[in-house]
C-alpha cells in the first residue's frame, strides 16, 4: 500500500508509531497496544524514521529516551508538512526523575501543531492503552474534518459550475428573445415569462431529492397560472415519470413556450379551446418516453411563414433531450407537437458523472 492510499483510508483507526530506542521498551509498548487491537509500527533508530513517518501514523508514542535532537527534528519536519486539518497526537512517556513542565514547554515549542499528551512512569497499562485509544479517536475526528473540507471544496466547484451554467442559459434566452422581439414591451414580456419559467423549474428541482423532478410537477407548475376560474383548459396526463435536472428544465421551458403560444394564437385564445398534454412510457426493457401536446377548439391554424422563437426553441431543445427532432404539425384543427426518445437519456437519477453525489 502506498502512502497516499493509506492517508485516504479513513474507515479503520490508524496505526501507532512507537519511537523507543531501547528494544525492551519498544517490545513492551508494542505488545501492550497490540493486545488492545491497535496497529503498531516501531522505530528504534533515527535512520528509518522518515520512512515510518511517511506511512502516516495516526498517533506517535515516544519514550523519553527517544527525544534526541535527531528524532525531534525529524518529527518537527513531519509536523510542519502536515495539511491544515491535521494536528497529530503525540503521547510522550516521561522518566520518573524528569521535570515534566520543562519538557512540556520545550516540546510545545519545537513541535507546534501537535496534540501533546504526557505520562510519567510508572504508568498503568489501562491508563496508557486508553490514552492511546482516545488519541486515535481524536485523529479519526481530524480525518472527518478533512473529508468535510474536501466535500466543501467539491460543492463550491459544483456551485460555480451551476451558476455559470444558469448565467449562460439566461444569456442565451436574452439573445434569442431580443432577436425575435418586435418592440421593447414585447421583449420585456417574453423575457420575463421565460425567466419565470426557468425560476419555477429550478425551485422544483431544488426541492426534490436526487436533483430531479416529475413530469406531472413540471406540467403543474407551468400550467397553473393559466387555469382560469377552475376550468381545466389544459389537461395533463401520464404515468409517474421522473426526469433529471437538465431534461426537466428543458421540458418546462418548452411547455412554457407551447402554453404562451396557445394563449396568444392557439386554442387557449378562444373560450372553448382546450389542450391535452399526455406522456407515455413504452412497455419495453429499455422504454421510450413519448410526449404529445394537442390543441383543439381554437382558431383555424395556419403554418407561420417564418418560425418564431417558440417553435425554433422547441425544435432545438426537444432534439437535444430526446436525440431526435420533434414533430410539430400545424393541423387546421389544432397545433400538435410530438417528441419521443429513449427514457434512459432523460431519466432522473443521482447527478451525472464527476459531480457531487448526494449521500
Amino acid at each position, binding site marked *: 500500500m502506498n502512502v497516499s492510499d493509506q492517508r485516504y483510508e479513513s474507515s479503520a483507526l490508524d496505526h501507532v508509531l512507537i519511537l523507543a530506542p531501547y528494544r525492551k521498551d519498544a517490545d513492551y509498548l508494542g505488545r501492550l497496544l497490540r493486545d488492545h487491537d491497535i496497529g503498531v509500527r516501531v522505530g528504534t533508530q533515527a535512520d528509518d524514521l522518515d520512512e515510518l513517518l511517511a506511512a502516516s501514523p495516526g498517533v506517535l508514542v515516544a519514550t523519553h529516551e527517544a527525544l534526541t535532537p535527531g528524532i525531534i527534528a525529524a518529527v518537527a519536519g513531519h509536523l510542519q508538512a502536515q495539511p491544515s486539518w491535521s494536528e497529530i497526537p503525540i503521547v510522550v512517556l516521561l522518566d520518573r526523575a524528569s521535570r515534566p513542565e520543562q519538557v512540556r514547554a520545550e516540546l510545545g515549542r519545537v513541535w507546534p501543531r501537535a496534540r501533546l499528551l504526557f505520562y510519567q512512569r510508572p504508568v498503568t497499562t489501562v491508563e496508557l492503552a486508553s490514552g492511546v485509544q482516545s488519541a486515535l479517536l481524536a485523529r479519526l475526528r481530524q480525518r472527518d474534518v478533512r473529508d468535510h473540507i474536501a466535500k466543501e471544496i467539491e460543492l463550491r466547484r459544483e456551485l460555480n459550475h451551476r451558476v455559470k451554467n444558469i448565467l*449562460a*442559459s439566461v444569456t442565451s434566452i436574452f439573445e434569442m428573445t431580443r432577436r425575435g422581439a418586435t418592440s421593447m414591451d414585447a421583449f420585456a414580456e417574453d423575457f420575463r415569462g421565460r425567466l419565470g419559467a426557468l425560476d419555477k423549474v429550478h425551485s422544483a428541482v431544488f426541492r426534490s431529492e436526487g436533483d430531479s423532478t416529475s413530469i406531472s410537477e413540471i406540467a403543474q407548475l407551468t400550467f397553473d397560472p393559466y387555469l382560469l376560474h377552475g376550468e381545466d383548459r389544459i389537461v395533463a396526463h401520464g404515468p409517474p415519470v421522473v426526469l433529471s435536472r437538465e431534461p426537466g428544465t428543458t421540458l418546462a421551458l418548452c411547455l412554457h413556450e407551447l402554453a404562451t403560444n396557445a394563449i396568444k394564437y392557439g386554442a387557449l385564445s378562444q373560450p372553448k379551446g382546450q389542450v391535452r398534454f399526455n406522456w407515455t412510457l413504452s412497455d419495453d426493457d429499455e422504454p421510450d418516453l413519448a410526449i404529445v401536446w394537442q390543441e383543439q377548439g381554437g382558431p383555424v391554424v395556419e403554418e407561420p411563414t417564418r418560425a418564431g422563437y417558440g417553435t*425554433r*426553441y422547441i425544435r432545438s*431543445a426537444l432534439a*437535444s433531450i430526446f436525440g431526435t427532432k420533434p414533430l410539430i404539425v400545424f393541423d387546421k384543427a389544432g397545433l400538435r407537437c410530438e417528441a419521443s426518445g429513449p427514457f434512459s437519456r432523460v431519466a432522473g437519477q443521482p447527478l451525472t458523472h464527476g459531480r457531487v453525489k448526494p449521500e
Partner: protein
Amino acid sequence: MNKTTAGTSSPLRILYLEDNPLIVFHIEQMIEDFGHVFVGALDSFSELQKQFPSLEIDGALIDIDLADGSTGPDAAAWLHERGIPSFFVTGQAQIAAEYGDVSLGVVSKPVSQNELATKIELFRESAGR
C-alpha cells in the same frame, strides 16, 4: 437583422458538443442564419464516439465541460486524429489554450455572432474546401 451569410461558397456542416440545450439553441440559430448546416448537438464525448460513424461534418464546436465530465479536450483530440477541425466554445480560455495542438483555438463565451462567423470560416481552409 445583421446576418453574416456563407455567401456564394458552399455551406459547412457543423457539429456542436454542449450539454446545455439553451446554449445549443442559441448557437444553432446563429449557424443556420449564417447559411451553414447545423448537423446536431451531442452532450458528451461518449455520445460523439458512438454517433461519429453516421455523422458527416466539416468541423465541430466543443464545450470543455460536457455531461461526462471535462471531456471537451479529449473530444477535440479524438476528432483531430480523424481529420476533423474544431474550436472550443468556452469561457475557460486558458484551459483551451493548453490544447492548441488539437484544435484551431477558442470561440469565447458568451458567443458573439461576428466571432463565430469568422471562426467557422476557418473550418473551410482546414477541411480544404
